Structures are given as C-alpha cells and as structure tokens.
C-alpha cells in the first residue's frame, strides 16, 4: 500500500510518500503506526505521539481503530490548520 505523509510528519520522516507491505498481523491504523514506529529512530520520532496524528484512507478521515485491509492509500498528518 501507498503511504503519504504531510506537514511535520513528512518533515520528521524526510519523505512525502512510500510504498510499504506491512505483515499480516498489522490490521488497523493504530497497529500500522506502531509498526512504522518500530522501523528506526526516525520513524520512532515521527510517530512518538501517535495519538495526535490523524489518518485518512483513500481520501477519507478514519479513526485509529479503522481496518487497513484493502486500503490503496493511507495518509498520516497532524491536526489540520486550514481556512
């Protein structure tokens, strides 16, 4: 699946997007963030406060308990500050 990162999540990771294949046990958005955080120090830093990070699956906001099965594109970003 394709992952996208925005604002300070993107800055902390040093990349705007990537392709990942999480293992079968990673079923929800929260589990995906936890799995990413275990990759290395940079990911750990980006996802250190996972509770504040919002997620969207295929352009729709989702909760952290949302299932990621079948997702084409998952985005992680801080709370929004538009308008």
């Amino acid at each position, binding site marked *: 699946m394709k992952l996208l990162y925005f604002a300070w999540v993107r800055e902390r990771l040093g990349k705007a997007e990537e392709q990942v294949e999480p293992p079968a046990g990673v079923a929800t958005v929260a589990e995906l963030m936890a799995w990413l955080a275990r990759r290395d120090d940079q990911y750990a830093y980006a996802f250190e406060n996972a509770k504040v990070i919002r997620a969207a699956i295929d*352009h*729709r906001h989702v909760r952290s308990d949302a299932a990621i099965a079948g997702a084409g594109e998952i985005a992680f970003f801080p709370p*929004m500050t538009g*308008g």
Partner: protein
Amino acid sequence: MTAIIRLQREAFDAAAEVERMTLGRTDIGAVVTFTGLCRADENGEPIAALTLEHYPGMAEAEIARHVDEACARWPLLGVTVIHRYGRIAAGEVIVLVATASSHREAAFAAASFLMDYLKTRAPFWKQVETVAGTAWVKAKAADDAAAERWSAPLRQEH
C-alpha cells in the same frame, strides 16, 4: 444549486467571484461571504508569510463532502469555496467561502458551517515564516469546538 470548489496557488479576486454567483440571477436574495486573509502576526509574533501545505485529491473531496452536507441542511442557491495553497504573503487572501440563498438565515448558517469544517477537517496545514525560521501552526481547541457545535455525525468511516 451551483457549487464552485477551487484549490489554487494564485491569488484571486473575491469580489469578482461573488459577482459571478449572482450574475443574471433574480432568485438569490442573500449572499454571505467570508474572506480569510493572512495576518502579519501569529500568537503575537510578527510573520512575513504563511505557506499552506495540502493533500491534493483529499482536500477537494473533503470540501465537496462538506458542501454537499451544507446543501442538504440549508436551501442554498449557490456555494463557492476557493482555498489557496503555497506561499501567501501577509495581507493576501487565503480562503473565500460564499453562500447564496433566497433568505439570509440559510446563507449565514451555511457559510459559518463551511468555515468551521474547513478549519478542522479539510487537509491543509499552515506553516509561518518568522525571523527565527519556520514553524507549523498548532491546531486550536476553539476551532474544534466551533465545528462541534454543528453536531454533525462524525465523518469517520471504516
């Protein structure tokens, strides 16, 4: 109902956009417009400009979902939402929300509703430029509270 949703880097003429909504129409009795501008300060600190990052594709989709919801709630005759991204200097326009209806109540309410949701649900992130460097603007609890008052069902899915 005519809805115009546009995301763009370039500045725009808010008055001309509003005029376009009502041109040749005799059914519209009320137009409410909100224009958001870039202030030269953030939390008391002087800033030179804002840079708005957005999520292309989702930003348009999310605004369209809110426009649809506004149309379901109020009898609107026109909606225009224009949101800029990229670097925006102090004094420049960032966002325009204009709502048209036959009477004022619907136009006022829908404009307020759309702005409250744009602030908290549309995927845009503001970064300020100060003499010290750049910093991400923190989301404000007051903006969440403003959106909450419409007590819409959560748009979370899955």
